[in-house]
């Protein structure tokens, strides 16, 4: 059986309002901290204020004497963990400190105020060792990881790059840099941990309840059946909540010491900058060679980035370069510096996002060197097959996106010469960039469908909705899969009491979960027919998609941006952005559009605002709050014109859809950087493009 036959639906494609809308607009949807638990205690963490060394002495006597303090937990009295192989999560197991801000203990008290005060009066002294937190491309200790994140090869070589580059008619050799960035979902990472009779319940802010369960159970030496994770509503994640971080372990460790009483732990915004992952800074050298006609003959993308000494995370930064454009030769490499830093992790489109910033900025520069329009230059280098796999694309409509975007935006009259369009004090320019993201697919999801009588169906899968619209989209998919109306579907997600679902990441949710729903619905109808009895149920797992052996599957897109640069102050404004996407079938146009504008808005933040600044002397992020780590505000965002082109892709999954959660941030920062160059004549190659870099 092929999974690839698209079922024409009634609910799929409808712009339904979010079914959880009324709960969200009234604030009654329960996020992790907000589940009703009886007689909770409150946790405030103790974090190392050195980068590297050992805890020498802890004096908690004053804190322990405070009325309302129940527990001070440190490595001296913490329960031993059964599995300490993950050094990010194996906290309070020794006196060792491996990065600034690492948890060295916690206070548990009757109220948040008492816990916070107690934490402030605990005296910890350290034996401090020398540390190293500075990423530079010229370090002599860069190393080559075995693989990069996602299981991809670290380096690739296609043809003879050195020969092709040296003999190219037109050459570019530039280095681009992106800074450390923090995901900063609005809901801080949160855990409410409850131990009852050896069973652990976690109310958790997570993109993958089942992933948390699978990770936490062995750490506490528990059979997975004794761990339950509950996460019906999640206040954003963007990757940082894709895997459990040490805050989850800290809350569960502390709760174990006060068995029977729930322990609540939400990070403060400042604490969000030390222990829940971040996007690694990158230094990316790009070399492009082309012939006289502007056809690429050589592409090289060499990435230097950082990881933590305690745990490797190797971002797959150059991965999109391996397939984006046709070329005669190609080289991609990743090198890591292992530093005394917190563990980097996923942030929206890890790999593709920073990598495509560099590639698409370089493509803009190269188009100018080739004396070609940047849209035409990209179209000229459109590949026929996927260079990474040698397979044809199931669908690839980048060219259509570029052409449609150019038409909508009014690109054709553009004067390519930079810094000539001036309106008063504003220098005006426009820029373009391409986008891509693979059709993510993760194995293992399962769906249970049960007839509840009265024509209603329960559809259960432990997936997460982190704002992506899962509640609504899976309801629509369930309705079409069962050939019933959305109003008779009772979807249940966000709980490990329902069947396993893969994590909400890699833009893979709808492909993985939706395919499984279609499979379960098919099995349900096969077993129970069109008129089932109350209690009839089936459970089914995600089917294979044999077409993945035959086709490379990617989504594509293009951005067109207008930038205005204040000639005196260097302030940049972005009055309008156009995004055109080729992403297969859209499940819900209303929530899909939100995914695109959300990704592009975060891309605007990446281009102009976001940068976590580490003080190399002390190893911490100095600008660790929203007053100083700037994310886009309402006033930063102008007109957003979003469209998608018709794209029938019968191979990707039964819905004909491609993941859309991440593609909107891939390349959008490059389009802004390219527009800023066109406006000002200044090519900034290290993000973010802050005013100081434009005032010369």
């Amino acid at each position, binding site marked *: 059986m092929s999974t690839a036959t698209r079922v024409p639906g009634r609910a799929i494609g409808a712009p339904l*309002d979010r079914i959880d809308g009324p709960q969200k607009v009234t*604030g009654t949807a329960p996020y992790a901290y907000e589940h009703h638990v009886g007689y909770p205690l409150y946790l405030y963490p103790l974090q190392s204020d050195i980068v590297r060394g050992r805890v020498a002495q802890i004096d908690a006597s004053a804190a322990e004497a405070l009325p309302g303090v129940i527990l001070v937990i440190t490595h001296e009295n913490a329960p031993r963990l059964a599995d300490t192989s993950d050094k990010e999560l194996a906290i309070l197991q020794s006196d060792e400190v491996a990065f600034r801000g690492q948890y060295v203990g916690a206070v548990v008290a009757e109220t948040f105020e008492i816990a916070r005060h107690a934490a402030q009066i605990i005296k910890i002294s350290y034996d401090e060792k020398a540390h190293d937190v500075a990423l530079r491309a010229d370090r002599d200790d860069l190393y080559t990881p075995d693989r990069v994140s996602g299981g991809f090869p670290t380096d690739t070589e296609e043809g003879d790059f050195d020969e092709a580059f040296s003999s190219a008619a037109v050459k570019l050799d530039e280095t681009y840099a992106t800074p450390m960035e923090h995901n900063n979902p*609005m809901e801080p990472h949160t855990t409410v941990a409850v131990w009852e009779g050896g069973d652990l319940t976690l109310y958790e802010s997570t993109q993958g309840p089942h992933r948390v369960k699978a990770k936490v159970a062995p750490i506490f030496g528990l059979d997975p059946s004794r761990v339950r994770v509950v996460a019906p509503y999640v206040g954003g994640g963007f990757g940082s909540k894709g895997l459990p971080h040490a805050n989850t372990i800290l809350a569960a460790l502390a709760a174990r010491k006060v068995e029977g009483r729930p322990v609540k732990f939400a990070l403060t915004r400042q604490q969000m900058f030390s222990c829940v992952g971040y996007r690694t800074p990158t230094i990316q050298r790009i070399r492009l060679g082309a012939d006289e006609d502007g056809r690429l003959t050589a592409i090289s993308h060499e990435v230097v980035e950082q990881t933590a000494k305690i745990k490797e995370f190797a971002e797959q930064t150059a991965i999109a370069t391996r397939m984006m454009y046709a070329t005669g030769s190609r080289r991609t490499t990743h090198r890591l510096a292992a530093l005394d830093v917190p563990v980097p992790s996923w942030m929206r489109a890890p790999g593709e996002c920073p990598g495509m910033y560099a590639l698409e900025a370089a493509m803009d520069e190269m188009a100018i060197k080739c004396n070609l329009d940047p849209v035409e230059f990209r179209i000229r280098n459109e590949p026929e097959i996927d260079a990474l796999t040698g397979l044809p694309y199931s669908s690839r409509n980048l060219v259509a996106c570029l052409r449609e975007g150019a038409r909508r935006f009014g690109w054709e009259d553009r004067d390519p010469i930079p810094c000539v369009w001036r309106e008063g004090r504003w220098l005006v320019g426009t820029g373009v960039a391409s986008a891509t993201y693979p059709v993510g697919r993760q194995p293992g999801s399962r769906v249970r469908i049960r007839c509840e009588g009265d024509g209603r169906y329960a559809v259960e899968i432990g997936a997460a909705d982190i704002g992506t619209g899962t509640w609504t989209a899976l309801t629509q998919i369930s309705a079409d899969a069962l050939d019933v109306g959305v109003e008779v579907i009772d979807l249940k997600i966000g709980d490990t009491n329902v069947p396993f679902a893969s994590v909400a990441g890699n833009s893979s949710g709808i492909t993985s979960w939706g395919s499984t729903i279609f499979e379960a619905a098919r099995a349900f109808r096969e077993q129970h027919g069109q008129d089932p009895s109350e209690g009839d149920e089936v459970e089914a797992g995600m089917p294979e998609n044999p077409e993945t052996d035959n086709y490379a599957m990617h989504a594509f897109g293009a951005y067109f941006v207008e930038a205005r640069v204040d000639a005196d102050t260097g302030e940049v404004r972005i009055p309008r952005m156009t995004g055109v996407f080729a992403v297969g079938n859209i499940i819900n146009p209303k929530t899909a559009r939100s995914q695109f*504008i*959300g990704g592009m808005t975060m891309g605007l933040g990446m281009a102009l605002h976001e940068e976590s600044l580490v003080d190399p002397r002390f190893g911490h992020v100095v600008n660790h709050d929203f007053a100083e780590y700037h994310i886009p505000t*309402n006033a930063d965002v102008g007109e957003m014109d979003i469209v998608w082109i018709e794209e029938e892709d019968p191979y990707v999954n039964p819905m004909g859809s491609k993941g859309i959660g991440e593609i909107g941030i891939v390349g959008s920062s490059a389009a802004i950087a390219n527009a800023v160059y066109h406006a000002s004549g200044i090519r900034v190659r290290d993000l973010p493009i802050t005013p100081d870099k434009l005032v010369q």
Partner: protein
Amino acid sequence: MNEEEIMLRVDCEEHRIIVDTRTTLLDALRERLGNTSPKKGCDHGQCGACTVLLDGRRANSCLALAVAHDGAEIVTAEALAENGDLHPMQRSFIEHDGYQCGYCTPGQIVSAVGMLDEVEAGWPSHVTGDVSAEKISLSDAEIRERMSGNLCRCGAYANIVPAIREVADERARR
């Protein structure tokens, strides 16, 4: 630890509670009164997720100490919906998909409601052309400027602005 007894009128209901004087209005609402409609996003007045109407004006409840607001009248997003009917601003946010994860949303909506009252009262903003004008013309730039104290990491701003605009236009027609 110092404690004081205070009275808060929250969403039309009176509550007498004894609070730690360090307790913020936000924590009093969430942890003492079980009203989790206002959210804690930063606890420092930098994100607006905790916005409530405090004696009729929008305020960051994380920057207010509960003890300093004895007798205050507080309205959260939960109470904007009356008798199960959503407030027009709530309906408009749903219609325009002016949210994604929903965590900043109650604050955005309360802030938008408070903001329209400020505009009606003639309060100028940073982008107001004629600050002495009796009537403020509510351009999109005005909405964006006046709503910039409410951060949305999902990036729903481009939907939030038309959601508010629709309510403002409807109000202007009445």
